[in-house]
């Protein structure tokens, strides 16, 4: 059983602390995704789990056994690197067999293992080739194959798809999802691509500046973000934020007076708030509707982006540093410079207090 348990993991490089006490329990067979902006410590954490970096403080257990002092090979892990990291002087076969050869397996023993994995990854016709004769997607499959032949209990992926082009990335993403279902191994996957995170993960871990911001299923993180950072990180375009202060609290909703004097209602639990508190209202672009009168803000259109399946309208609003993004039907026409009303249902709104902590939404999964 390969549960991975992180207990107060701290990592320091000299005077710089990059991980400030990470606590996380990863279940056996779980697909967990670490996301966060560049430099947030997600890759460092993966490397401490792999054993490529030592742990300054805290304890790492894999399958209930303390791993802090064990080298990578004794941890039962395999890693797929962002840059593939294939051995350029070896053929595909030799690349995949390298670890088994080091484990003193005989050629007759490891050949069938490598061939089986190659077949699954559709690499069987490429076994004699050198990495430089392969395309990017093929190289990444070799790197994944090299991990699979080791039969690890835990797979570690360090942004494996970020070097691939968009179409190949979608293909490989589906591939990895299928692989996880087939192997049933625990997988830890680092990415900065939130689509990968949302589609692949059983649970997502959001990092910021070496701290864990929130852990949860993709749905939980999307609909019940714990704070401003998580709310803004997931979703594309990101959530719209407008600052204001609480003017009225009822059991069903809170009314917020925005910077431009308009009032909007948000259906959140107001038991910890009081009138006059500075707050931030959050609304996702898909929940704003242009041209409605109820519960709305108004502003001037600055840009219209046509994405094909839908369009995104950017609207200036005094309460928001960034223009508000609004998802509208693909062919709907709005002129740039026009003033529009943007309305949303109170149950679709989010509210964050002055510390950026979210107030509990009353009906998070409302249609």
């Amino acid at each position: 059983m390969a549960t991975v348990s992180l207990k107060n993991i701290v990592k320091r490089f000299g005077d710089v602390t990059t991980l400030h006490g990470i606590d996380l329990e990863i279940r056996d067979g779980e697909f967990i995704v670490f996301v966060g902006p560049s430099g947030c410590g997600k890759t460092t954490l993966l490397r401490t789990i792999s054993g490529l970096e030592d742990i300054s403080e805290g304890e790492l257990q894999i399958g209930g056994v303390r791993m802090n002092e064990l080298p990578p090979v004794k941890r039962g892990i395999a890693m797929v690197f962002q840059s593939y990291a294939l051995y350029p002087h070896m053929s595909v076969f030799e690349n995949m067999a390298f670890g088994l050869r080091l484990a003193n397996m005989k050629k007759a023993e490891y050949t069938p293992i490598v061939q089986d994995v190659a077949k699954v990854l559709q690499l069987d016709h490429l076994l004699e080739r050198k990495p430089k004769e392969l395309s990017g997607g093929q190289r990444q499959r070799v790197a994944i194959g090299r991990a699979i032949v080791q039969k690890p209990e835990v797979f570690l992926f360090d942004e494996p798809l970020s070097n691939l082009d968009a179409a190949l990335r979608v293909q490989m993403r589906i591939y990895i999802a299928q692989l996880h279902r087939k192997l049933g191994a625990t997988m830890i996957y680092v990415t900065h691509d939130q689509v990968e995170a949302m589609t692949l993960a059983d649970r997502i871990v959001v990092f910021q500046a070496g701290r864990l911001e929130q852990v949860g299923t993709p749905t939980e993180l999307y609909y019940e973000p714990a704070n401003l950072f998580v709310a803004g990180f997931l979703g594309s375009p990101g959530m719209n934020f407008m600052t204001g202060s609480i003017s009225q609290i009822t059991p069903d909703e809170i009314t917020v007076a925005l910077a431009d004097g308009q009032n909007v209602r948000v259906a959140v639990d107001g038991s910890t708030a009081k009138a006059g508190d500075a707050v931030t209202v959050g609304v996702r672009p898909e929940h704003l509707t242009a041209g409605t009168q109820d519960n709305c803000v108004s502003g001037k259109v600055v840009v219209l982006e046509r994405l094909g399946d839908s369009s995104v309208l950017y609207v200036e609003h005094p309460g928001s540093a960034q223009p508000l993004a609004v998802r509208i039907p693909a062919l709907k026409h709005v002129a740039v410079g026009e003033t529009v009303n943007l309305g949303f249902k109170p149950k679709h709104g989010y509210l964050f207090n002055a510390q950026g902590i979210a107030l509990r939404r009353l009906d998070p999964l409302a249609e």
Partner: protein
Amino acid sequence: MAMVLDKSHTGRVFATHLALIVFIALSLFPFLMIISISLRAGNFAAGGIIPDHISLEHWKLALGFSYIDQFGHQVDPPFPVLHWLWNSCKVALMTAVVVLTLSTTCAYAFARLKFVGRKFGLNALFLMQMFPSVLSLIAIYAIFDQIGNYAPWLGIDSHGSLVLAYAGGVALHIWTIKGYFETIPVEIEEAALVDGASHFQTFRLVLLPMAVPILIVVFLLSFIGAIIEYPVASVLLHQEQNLTLAVGSKLYLYTQNYLWGDFAAAAILSGLPITVLFLLSQKWMVNGLTSGGVKG
């Protein structure tokens, strides 16, 4: 790539070629001179570049044969030139192997491992290399004289001592190889560590195969350095049987009699192993050994 060029371009190309041809002629001239001297009858340094009469007497002596001179006397080879050549090759090969072993392992440590004194060690090595080894000749002599009391195979007049003395000159090679190692992406070695390789296995099975071109260059450089080295060899080697060709051929030039012709033939011979080794190693000096390993 048919780029559109200015009209003055042709003139500039012509001038450049002319300058290059002059330069090549200048650098080839000494070499042609020495071939000419070695093929000239008698021992004369001066004379036309193409000898009036080609004589193989110097080459016969150099290759260990006797010849009959114009007065009917048999002239025997004065020195064991081929034996010296063999000594030179032996010392140079051993030196190259020792230098390569030391400098690759050191370079790996300096390039990849973190340890106290890493930066200081690198700079210290570099600074020491700035003093020519000639300055330490007396020290070298004294050291090997002492060592010889305990290990004769490393003492004065042994080839072992020469190899050891030459092995001291690894600092520049360490810098060269370290620079090359640092261009190789570290992820490839990390992948090997995750695959279960030890540091030494990573070094031998993953890093070294990717560094072959620079290893060949260092091997050649230290081989050439050892073949042509004179000062240290002249101090450490005494008996005629033990001399390297560089030291031995100096014996042709004693004050009473400069045997230029014999010297020239021996000098050309000393270039032979270098040429052979260079031709053999050329196919390994290729680019792109690391391509395909990581995203370019």
